[in-house]
């Protein structure tokens, strides 16, 4: 990483940022003007511009979402952004305004759909309210004629309608009560009478809990109204279809919408970058980082193209800078695991190279069945060949592919292929199901090698920062102490049966004591006061305990491996026990084997992934990695749908290999 400083003319600023964005290798840092020049120079205020861009973005996003719902496109399982040539991109981006209009249309289509939906709901609720009145042959919208009234309503279900009718006709012979429907708790009735008697009749009815129900929007009898509603509903449906087909029509503009969305996304990034510069009336100052190998190219390009002063320098010693991990293709596939943990600091070594082999090897041992490994590799290999995908997804799939290969290796070592018992004879190394104790010791041994590698990385980091001597004191003496510790514990290692009196163990005691003394003597050397110098080493003795528990943590290699092997074996045994006639038996056995192995595979493939991660994060990275670095975030087109193939990106590709540092 190198530091870059550019001093240029303000009128060229936007164009320069655009070029840097196309190049995509420079990170622009936020700069504040010094207090001295505060009056003349300032950061450009871009809030209003950003607000406008954001409102356009949200409009386009909404339109694309709507199209996704009503005119979905089947996406392949793994998809990558479309590559668009710069020329085509510019052409579509010119049509921004008309595309925004399209987006507006899509959104208004959805609003129409919403309105139609609420209309339909209204019709439905009206139809529901009409149901009790279907048998009534009276127009529901006529409450009064010249002399008579007709009201609809309900009376209490416990009332006997005949009694009601009699009571009414005794006082008002011109009245009539008609029952539309009787339900358990109420009768739906229509009451007819003379207008002049209306209030008295209503008073009488109140004795039976009269409740007036007026049906607005009715036209004619209930039956007629329902027919009318059906017609209306059909109209609504027709309108809905029309709107839908309009959306489908507009969906053809999807690609343009996506391109314009991304063009706003790009503009947003550029505007934000602008606010990081310091500007005066005529000039601007930009500071940032770029990968060292591009330094000359960027300088030459900027000097040739713009009227500006470019200064590129290496970071000072101990200065933190953004981190860009770069590895060969195979090793890079471990990056999903590393980034889950966090970015290493710029003062540390890139852990990818050492993590990769340990990760896939331990994964293989944990899954432990070559057959399952074969399946993983076949599936992921197929995906890698068949689909084009984003780099991050590709790394992950690639990692799984290597994990599959490593699992096949483990299968060969253990003689474990789909848990088939007779194949254990082919084991090249050890059969864990037969000698679990020995395998436990091997698991711990693998752990020790793993952690020693971690300590070695720590030594390299220390040596880089403060010299070889510190590395020897801080790590070399740890090696001696821990090795002695391990040797003196050998009699307790399961499955090895080494007696305590053997010379290795006796030597171990001595090495351990020497190691402890060396650590105690040197660990406190940087402490200022005398107590610190004498007792500074005591805490590192405690490190032995944590080293011991870390060792035991590696027994999970045995545990996970054994679990998958034994469950696989049980599935096979269960399958073979099935009786019955020949054909039925084949079917049942196939089903049991398929189901059982799929389950076992899914469970343990996942378990191995997670626990292999854990061993890297806690036991391995814990030894040397401090992390806390900032990832390198260059100014570039962070788009969602398209990748623009710019002419400038070709500039960087040409001949960089020679310059890679």
């Amino acid at each position: 990483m190198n530091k870059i400083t550019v001093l240029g003319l303000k009128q060229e600023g936007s164009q320069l940022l655009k070029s840097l964005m196309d190049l995509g290798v420079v990170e622009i840092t936020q700069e504040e003007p010094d207090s001295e020049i505060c009056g003349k120079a300032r950061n450009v205020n871009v809030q209003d511009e950003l607000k406008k861009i954001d409102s356009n973005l949200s409009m386009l996003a909404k339109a694309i979402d709507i199209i996704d719902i009503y005119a979905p496109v089947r996406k392949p399982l793994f998809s990558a952004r479309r590559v668009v040539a710069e020329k085509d991109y510019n052409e579509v981006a010119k049509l921004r305004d008309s595309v925004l209009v399209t987006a507006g249309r899509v959104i208004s289509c959805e609003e129409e759909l919403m309105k139609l939906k609420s209309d339909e709901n209204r019709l439905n609720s009206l139809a529901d309210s009409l149901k009790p009145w279907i048998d009534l042959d009276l127009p529901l919208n006529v409450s009064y004629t010249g002399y008579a009234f007709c009201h609809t309503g309900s009376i209490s279900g416990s009332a006997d309608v005949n009694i009601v009718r009699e009571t009414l006709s005794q006082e008002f012979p011109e009245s009539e009560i008609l029952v539309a429907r009787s339900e358990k708790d109420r009768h739906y009735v229509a009451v007819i009478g003379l207008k002049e008697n209306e209030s008295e009749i209503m008073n009488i009815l109140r004795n039976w809990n009269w409740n007036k129900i007026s049906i607005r929007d009715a036209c004619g009898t209930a039956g007629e109204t329902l027919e009318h509603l059906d017609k209306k509903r059909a109209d609504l449906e027709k309108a809905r279809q029309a709107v839908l087909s309009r959306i489908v029509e507009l969906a053809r503009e999807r690609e343009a919408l996506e391109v314009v969305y991304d063009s706003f996304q790009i503009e947003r990034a550029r505007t934000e970058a602008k606010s990081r510069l310091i500007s005066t009336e005529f000039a601007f100052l930009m500071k940032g980082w770029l990968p060292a190998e591009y330094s000359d190219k960027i300088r030459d390009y900027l000097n040739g193209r713009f009227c500006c002063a470019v200064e590129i320098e290496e970071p000072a010693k101990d200065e933190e800078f953004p981190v860009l991990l770069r590895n060969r293709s195979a090793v890079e596939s471990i990056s999903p695991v590393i980034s889950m943990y966090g970015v290493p600091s710029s003062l540390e070594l890139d852990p990818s190279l050492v993590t990769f082999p340990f990760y896939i090897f331990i994964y293989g041992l944990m899954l432990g069945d070559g057959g399952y490994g074969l399946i993983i590799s076949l599936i992921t290999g197929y995906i890698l060949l068949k689909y084009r995908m984003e780099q991050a997804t590709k790394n992950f799939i690639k990692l799984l592919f290597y994990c599959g290969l490593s699992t096949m290796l483990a299968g060969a070592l253990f003689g474990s292929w789909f848990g088939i018992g007779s194949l254990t004879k082919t084991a090249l190394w050890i059969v864990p199901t037969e000698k679990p104790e020995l395998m436990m010791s091997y698991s711990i041994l693998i752990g020790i090698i793993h952690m020693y590698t971690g300590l070695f990385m720590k030594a390299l980091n220390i040596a880089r920062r403060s010299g070889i001597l510190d590395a020897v004191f801080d790590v070399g003496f740890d090696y001696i102490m821990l090795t002695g510790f391990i040797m003196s514990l050998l009699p307790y290692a399961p499955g090895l049966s080494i007696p305590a009196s053997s010379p290795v163990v006796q030597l171990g005691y001595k090495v351990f004591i020497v190691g402890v003394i060396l650590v105690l003597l040197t660990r406190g050397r940087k402490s200022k006061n005398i107590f610190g110098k004498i007792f500074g080493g005591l805490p590192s003795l405690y490190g032995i305990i944590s080293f011991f528990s870390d060792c035991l943590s590696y027994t999970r290699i045995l545990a996970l491996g054994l679990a998958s092997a034994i469950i696989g074996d049980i599935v096979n045994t269960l399958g073979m026990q099935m009786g019955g006639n020949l054909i039925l038996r084949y079917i049942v056995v196939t089903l049991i084997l398929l189901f059982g192995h799929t389950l076992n595979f899914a469970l343990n493939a996942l378990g191995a992934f997670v626990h292999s991660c854990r061993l890297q994060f806690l036991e391995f990275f814990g030894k040397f990695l401090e992390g806390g670095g900032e990832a390198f975030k260059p100014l570039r087109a962070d788009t969602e749908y398209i990748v623009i193939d710019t002419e400038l990106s070709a500039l960087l590709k040409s001949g960089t290999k020679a310059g890679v540092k």
Partner: protein
Amino acid sequence: MPELKFSSLFMNPQVYAIFGAAIAFLLAALGSSRGCGIAGQAAAGVVAEEPKRFTATMILQAMPSTQAIYGFVIANMILGKISGDMTLSQGLSLFIIGLPMGIVGWYSAVYQGKVATSGIHLVAKRPGGLFNAIIYATMVELFAIFSLVVSIIMLGKV
């Protein structure tokens, strides 16, 4: 038919062995039922609001079911060890072998269910969090795997 005395049951090695197998499966499967149960309730609540989360929540709900499988494995292996001429101490050993798998399986399944439930809430709020949620739940699983292995290693000694 020989006379069956109740007291002779206590001296019968096969009975102890079967008891061990029963404990191994019973407790582990009980725990799995509980774990899947509480996770399932949370999952249904989330899916009611967000139907798209079905697959993610289902994966998390299924996670505590493995303890029952491990219990099943141990029960099977204990039953496979039972023979007519075994001694009382062998029978008692087979009983004890069922304990780690049964008890730890039960406990870890319940807690895995609780972690999975929290994971389901995590997925509800942040759809990209499925992997993190799975990692948390898988951590709890490890102890069930260890007890499975301990039970298996002990079986090798009887």
